[in-house]
């Protein structure tokens, strides 16, 4: 059995708790236990708070990492933004002793000390490395017969020198996870393009942000894709809620394409129900292939 602290962030627990429920359940089936990271906050969003004030960004991120460090548990996340913040902050603190001193000086009053004894992981790493494709395949009881468009998001892979998951130009990790469920991962134009939400663009300029999203959905529709999957709660919100907003803003044809977080898709393949995975609470309803 392996134990992790789950860093929830904002969007997962406060908008898409189905991601949380699905992730904890799927991991548990493979003997990975999840512990609460009590008192965690916003990561805070790397492209947003990192753009406002890098000192505040680093200190809040370091606080979140330190909470887990003091529990002695590695952390997993279900959002590329959380991954971006926590993993980057942890990386900087491990590389630069002067930053570590500065952070500890400023966290002293909170009774916290960053030591750097833990790792920040994305749940995709747990699925791929701790569990592995072979065991995931063995656990499939209800194979998916569907064409899936994978959306990687940005901060899971990039910057590749910091993240360490190899090339960001031709990743296969999520496609392999999708295909383990019996579904087919179908390539589409601009597959690796950003969803448009990051860097504060969704907040400041919704129309620009949604134009990214719209382009991705147009390409997926053309490729005959049934549903899109992602590894990021923020991309997930942008792509699910975003379809409704695209309709409102641009008045165009409704894409109506189901959006699933990777553990929700895996959960379905393992025989879990649409309802227990929180999929029926999405803005875009599931189509028949994803109702169980």
């Amino acid at each position, binding site marked *: 059995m392996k134990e992790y602290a789950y860093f929830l962030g904002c969007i997962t627990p406060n908008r898409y708790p189905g991601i949380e429920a699905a992730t904890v359940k799927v991991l548990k089936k493979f003997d990975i236990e999840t512990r609460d990271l009590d008192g965690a906050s916003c990561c805070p969003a790397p492209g947003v708070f990192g753009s406002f004030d890098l000192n*505040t960004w680093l200190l809040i991120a370091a606080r979140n990492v330190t909470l887990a460090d003091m529990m002695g548990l590695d952390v997993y996340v279900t959002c590329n933004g959380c991954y971006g913040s926590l993993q980057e902050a942890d990386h900087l603190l491990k590389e630069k002793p002067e930053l570590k001193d500065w952070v500890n000086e400023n966290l002293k009053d909170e009774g916290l000390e960053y030591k750097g004894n833990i790792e920040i992981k994305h749940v995709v790493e747990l699925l791929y490395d701790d569990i592995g494709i072979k065991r995931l395949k063995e656990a499939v009881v209800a194979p998916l017969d569907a064409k899936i468009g994978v959306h990687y998001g940005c901060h899971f892979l990039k910057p590749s020198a910091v993240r360490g998951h190899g090339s960001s130009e031709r990743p296969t990790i999520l496609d392999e996870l999708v295909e383990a469920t019996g579904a087919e991962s179908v390539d589409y134009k601009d597959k690796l393009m950003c969803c448009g939400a990051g860097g504060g663009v969704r907040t400041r300029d919704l129309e620009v942000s949604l134009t990214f999203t719209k382009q991705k959905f147009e390409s997926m529709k053309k490729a005959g894709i049934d549903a899109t999957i992602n590894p990021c709660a923020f991309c997930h919100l942008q792509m699910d809620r975003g379809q409704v907003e695209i309709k409102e803003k641009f008045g165009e044809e409704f894409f109506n394409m189901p959006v699933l977080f990777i553990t929700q898709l895996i959960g379905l393949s393992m025989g879990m129900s649409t309802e227990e995975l929180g999929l029926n609470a999405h803005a875009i309803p599931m189509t028949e292939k994803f109702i169980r």
Partner: protein
Amino acid sequence: MSLVEDIEECGWVFGKDTVDSLYACMQCGKCTGSCPSGRITGYRTRRLMNKVQSGDRSILEDPDIWLCTTCYTCYERCPREVKTTDVIRALRNVAAKEGHMSKAHRATAMYVIKTGHAVPINDATKKLRKKLGLSEIPPTTHKYPEALKAIQDISKKMKFDKLVGFDWNTMNLEDREEK
């Protein structure tokens, strides 16, 4: 102080080398060609690098600098290893310090100071959490007042509250003219 020195100061957490990588820019335009935002807007990453290199402070007022989604595509592809996305984030710190922060962005920051979350919980999600067998309130700053206080202490210590114009009496944003 010159613009680059200001960016170095705001971006000190990355180290001076990261910001100074911008001096290696040879204006090839690969960043612009890779930029998903530049594809649909007038934002040009190469031009931004050029203005920063030449110390043109008017870039701080240019709303286009906020059109980068921090996707890192240009950062990955730059043939001169300019740390573009980090330079952009540090540059935006300088802009924010000079008062160029939109109301919408200030509101996002306000939620973190007020609740510890940029996207706080609502009643519909509480209900859904319960239905899914999760705790109604997540074990975050939403549940632990002392954790929220820690975030508020950090905001004060870093003068983040001042930066975004947060009023502790009303627990809301101060009125401020948008620059």
